């Protein structure tokens, strides 16, 4: 009895010590897609490396500002107009054309030159004046008279527009990461690509992740096994005549949008969500409700610090 008593008492501190030992969480931070990507998984070092490889690959493929010596990318296609491309880039481009259809043109992969003009405006290298508006309209015409054709592994831009996949690249890369994690059976993960595209499994013990909203601090989402996309007027915004506009350009009007302040989309497919957080920013609420219902997406929308619409009353998504 005495020995049993001593054994139990000795086990308590040992158990305490074991409890405080680190779990198998692997973390890393990368500088990709012109933002920070945080990776946290409960897995092996090889899994972390593989995820980083996937994210780095799609960052290079979608880069439309510089060439990379080891891969043909969007910059190369824009420069050469016809180019043989890898399977992964062809897949990404085909997806962009598919999303153009699904968003009824509110996401357009050929918006490159229009987007470039607005980037100059955001960086204060240009002024918003009639000359700027005329140039935007001219590039819009070129975009509407351009197309992308893909035959086998040959990509051709027909017309004068440039490709820009900034609106879907992160989401598509995260989709590939999610496929890897699902195949490996890794359930505990949180990957945050610049706060605008996030995928998450579940925390240990089947718990929910707590997602804070930096502009709406009275609210918290509880989420697991979901993807989250965010578009916000507060990120890379443009000031025109004293009003704030988002960097998201309506491909039909060539104008930046300010119907909403922030749109949060929640669903299962991060690539779909990434494309739609761009597209929906230019649509009215009825259209948003129709589209999100069709594609089984949850949404929360803010304007002037007020929640103007949400797909459900609660803030729990799983």
């Amino acid at each position, binding site marked *: 009895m005495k020995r049993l008593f*001593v054994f139990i*008492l*000795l086990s*308590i*501190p*040992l158990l*305490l*010590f074991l409890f*405080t030992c680190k779990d198998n969480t692997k973390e890393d*931070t*990368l*500088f*990709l897609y*012109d*933002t*920070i990507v*945080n990776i946290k998984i409960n897995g092996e070092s090889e899994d972390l490396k593989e995820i980083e490889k996937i994210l*780095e690959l799609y960052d290079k493929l979608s880069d439309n500002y510089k060439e990379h010596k080891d891969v043909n990318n969007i910059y190369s296609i824009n420069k050469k107009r016809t180019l043989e491309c890898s399977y992964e880039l062809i897949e990404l481009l085909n997806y962009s054309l598919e999303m153009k259809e699904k968003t009824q043109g509110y996401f357009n992969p050929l918006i490159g030159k229009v987007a470039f003009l607005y980037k100059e405006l955001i*960086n*204060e290298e240009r002024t918003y004046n009639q000359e700027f508006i005329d140039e935007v309209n001219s590039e819009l015409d070129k975009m509407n008279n351009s197309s992308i054709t893909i035959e086998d592994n040959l990509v051709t831009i027909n017309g004068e527009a440039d490709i820009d996949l900034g609106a879907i690249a992160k989401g598509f890369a995260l989709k590939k990461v999610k496929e890897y994690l699902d195949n490996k059976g890794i359930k505990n993960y*949180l990957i*945050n690509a610049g*706060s*605008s595209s*996030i995928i*998450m499994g579940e*925390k240990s013990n089947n718990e929910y*992740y*707590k*997602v*804070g*909203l*930096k502009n709406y601090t009275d609210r*918290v989402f509880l989420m697991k096994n979901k993807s*989250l996309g*965010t578009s916000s007027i507060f990120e890379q915004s443009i000031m025109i005549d004293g009003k704030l506009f988002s960097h998201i350009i309506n491909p039909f009007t060539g104008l930046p949008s300010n119907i909403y302040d922030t749109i*949060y989309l929640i669903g299962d497919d991060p690539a779909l969500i990434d494309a739609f957080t761009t597209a929906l920013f230019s649509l009215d609420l009825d259209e948003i409700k129709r589209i999100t219902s069709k594609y089984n997406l949850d949404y929360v929308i803010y304007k002037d610090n007020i929640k103007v619409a949400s797909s459900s009353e609660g803030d729990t998504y799983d």
Partner: protein
Amino acid sequence: MINFLKKYLKEIILIGSICLVSLTLLLIFKGKSEDVNATIYVKTDEGTKILEVIDLSKVTNSYEKEIVINGKTVKLEIKHNAIRVIDAPCKHKDCINQGWTSNKNKPIICLDLGYTIVISRADDADVVV
């Protein structure tokens, strides 16, 4: 009671020592989670690299520090659990305008020079969007 203590004195001392060691280890691990670090990441041709990690929790008096990023000098001000950029040769000075950060979900980002400063600490939200 005194007889009990006398009889099992060795066992009590042994168990007490083990509990003390375990408690110390518990405090060490718990203490580590309260550390606030500023990690400076730099984008290089070979990928993202960590330039430096600064333990902000150990700072008692604020001080200034210069770091060299891709050949350019950036000046930081560091105080207890917070950091900011006070001078940088970048075009838009976004890093300076961001001011102090002490929150893991509000990193300082400079796309011009290709660096970011990320705070790591225990926090309420797992992620902030």
